[in-house]
């Protein structure tokens, strides 16, 4: 007997499994949110029993997020919450809807409730490889990272790059800048221009549609290399060297399918390099053999534990064991 007419959940009585999706960002942000949605969609396409009933996006404010989650939970079997910023909101809502399973993306909160699983990928590991490659490619030995709001999943890219760069060349300095908005192209452009003016010649963009701005800044200064995150965007700009690819599609497809089947275990599930969910990839024709070899090497060393990620590279891990796949 808990809020939001959870009795209406009967609406989803038939044998199909309904899924609701809530994101703080716009659904067509050409990045994080869009990939997550794609992942869910993939799961749905693969299984006729699954149904994506509704999407609540632009839920920027906690109150709104909670209401959104509640309405979704009341009418769906699985609710996908896209982003660690939703942790608290989920923590509030999940206990009220025990028979709905919540999938939190890019967060590794343990045991909020028996019906919550946090699925994340250790992007920082990817960042280490990217950092090493960028450092190697940099003439000025100045590289940088530009992200939206200053949140752990973004700073992870910075710390990862810093560590990776140090491995390649201790002299390399890594800058970071935050536009406070993954999708503000103008600010991104200005930030990139500023960074280039400061001498950086390799820039990683942890932005969604904001990346466009970084491309344009790079166009303006010959020899500037750009690195994406999550997916390869090689066709979008000639300056793109590669990307710390994250196979959200597979990760989420797996998780959502399991969640729907009720087999997804509660707690934090983090995908690392081993799983193949993460990998640094070069754009066709980009990257020297030396760099490619370097990428191989670092990847291997991380996987077999010779290189240990430093503080900040992995998302903050609450004091509990969590399984890395």
């Amino acid at each position, binding site marked *: *007997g*808990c*809020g*939001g*007419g959870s009795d*209406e959940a009967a609406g989803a009585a038939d044998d199909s499994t309904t899924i*609701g999706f809530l994101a703080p960002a716009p659904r067509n942000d050409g990045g994080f949110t869009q990939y997550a949605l794609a992942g869910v969609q993939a799961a749905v396409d693969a299984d006729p029993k699954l149904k994506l*009933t*509704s*999407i*609540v*996006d*632009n*839920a*920027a*404010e*906690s*109150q*709104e*997020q*909670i*209401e*959104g989650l509640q*309405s*979704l939970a009341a*009418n769906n079997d699985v609710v996908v919450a896209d982003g*660690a*910023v939703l*942790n*608290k*909101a989920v923590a*509030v809502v999940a206990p*009220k809807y025990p028979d709905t399973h919540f999938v939190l993306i890019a*967060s*590794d*909160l343990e045991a909020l409730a028996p019906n919550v699983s946090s699925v994340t990928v250790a992007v920082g590991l990817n960042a280490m490889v990217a950092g090493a490659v960028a450092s190697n490619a940099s003439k000025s030995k100045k590289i940088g990272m530009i992200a939206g*709001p*200053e*949140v*752990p999943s973004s700073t992870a890219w910075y710390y990862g790059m810093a560590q990776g760069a140090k491995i390649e060349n201790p002299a390399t300095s890594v800058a970071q800048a935050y536009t*406070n908005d993954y999708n503000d192209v103008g600010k991104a452009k200005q930030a990139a221009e500023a960074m280039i003016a400061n001498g950086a010649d390799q820039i990683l963009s942890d932005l969604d549609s904001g990346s466009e701005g970084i491309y344009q800044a790079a166009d303006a200064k010959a020899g500037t290399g750009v690195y994406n995150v999550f997916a390869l965007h090689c066709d979008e700009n000639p300056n793109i060297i590669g990307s710390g690819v994250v196979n959200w599609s597979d990760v989420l497809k797996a998780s959502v399918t399991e969640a729907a089947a009720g087999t997804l275990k509660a707690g934090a599930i983090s995908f690392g390099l081993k799983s193949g969910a993460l990998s640094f990839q070069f754009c066709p024709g980009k990257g020297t053999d030396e760099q490619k070899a370097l990428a191989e090497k670092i990847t291997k060393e991380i996987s077999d534990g010779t290189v240990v990620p430093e503080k900040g590279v992995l*998302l*903050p891990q*609450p004091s509990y064991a969590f399984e890395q796949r």
Partner: protein
Amino acid sequence: MKAFAVRVLTQLAVAAATLLFAALLLLAIGVSPGDAATAFWNGTFGSPTNAGTTLTQAVPLFLVALGWIVADKAGRMHVGFPGQVVIGGCAAAAVGLQCDGVPRVLAIVACALAGIAGGALWAGIVAWLWASRGVLEIISSLLLNLVALQVLAWLVRGPLQGSLDQQPQSANFPASTLWPAVESVPGRTLSYDVILLPLLAAALIWLFARTVFGFELRAAGGNLDAARWNGINPVRMGVSAIVISGGLAGLAGAALLFAGSAPWLSEGFEAGIGFNGIAVALLARNSPIGAIVTAIVFASLNVGGTSLQALLDVPSSLTSVLQGAVIVLVLVAAMLLRRRRAARRPAAPVTTTPSTEKELVA
């Protein structure tokens, strides 16, 4: 009697127009207006739980509206409510986070007072700049809004950052600080602070009609020079009006945090009530009673909007379009209403002196 009929008719007309507009938009994206209406109703008043949410969300809007009314009556047109809500909220949060283990009543009062103090203080800057440096309150308040946002952004990343996962959010407030909610409402969504709606409305009306302070406030607002020449200190009046309105806004900030369902400080918790509150007041033609109604309407627009998204996959943007449309239509209606009145009675009074109102007392 006839006037009343006209009034009702106009309001019905507005409602109809708004609904029509909404229906057209919904049809444009292939959602049946019928379903939408049901979803909207369920989401706002359909169940006790949701009704509770709606009413609880109306409170902060209403508080801001009252803040505007007070300042406006004193002729001080400041628009610093977003900033005052934010700072009030921050102050309340800062206190609340320390209140672990403090007896409930004490904790709650402390948070409320902290909120009021925060808002009043932030408004105090505006008041000081106006009274002693002659800075137009509308300018300084506008700028201070933008400053307040940055203060919040910094707090949730720095001093008040407290969540385990290092998101830009504070830790959850201790249970003892949360404002009590009506137990009988499932989900406990109906906070007791809704009693503020009638109470404060009555209090304000009484203040303006029955107290010397309220009278002097109105006089200073009506004609600053005449007030001064008749032994009223308009600077004192202006300052107290601005500070009081700031206090109300600050209380709204506290209510957002401690009466809502999200007991933590996060960026953007202000959620636009600062400006919407002004709209609430002006749509109610600065009548405290009317503001109760308009506040509830606005709140239901917010809540209903979210449930429309969740239930029918209506994009968030559409709900804000609806909000804008409602404001515009209500404005027009209110105006037409006044026109008909004017037609019956002589033209509006003349001898107001805006220039002297804008002139500054240094």
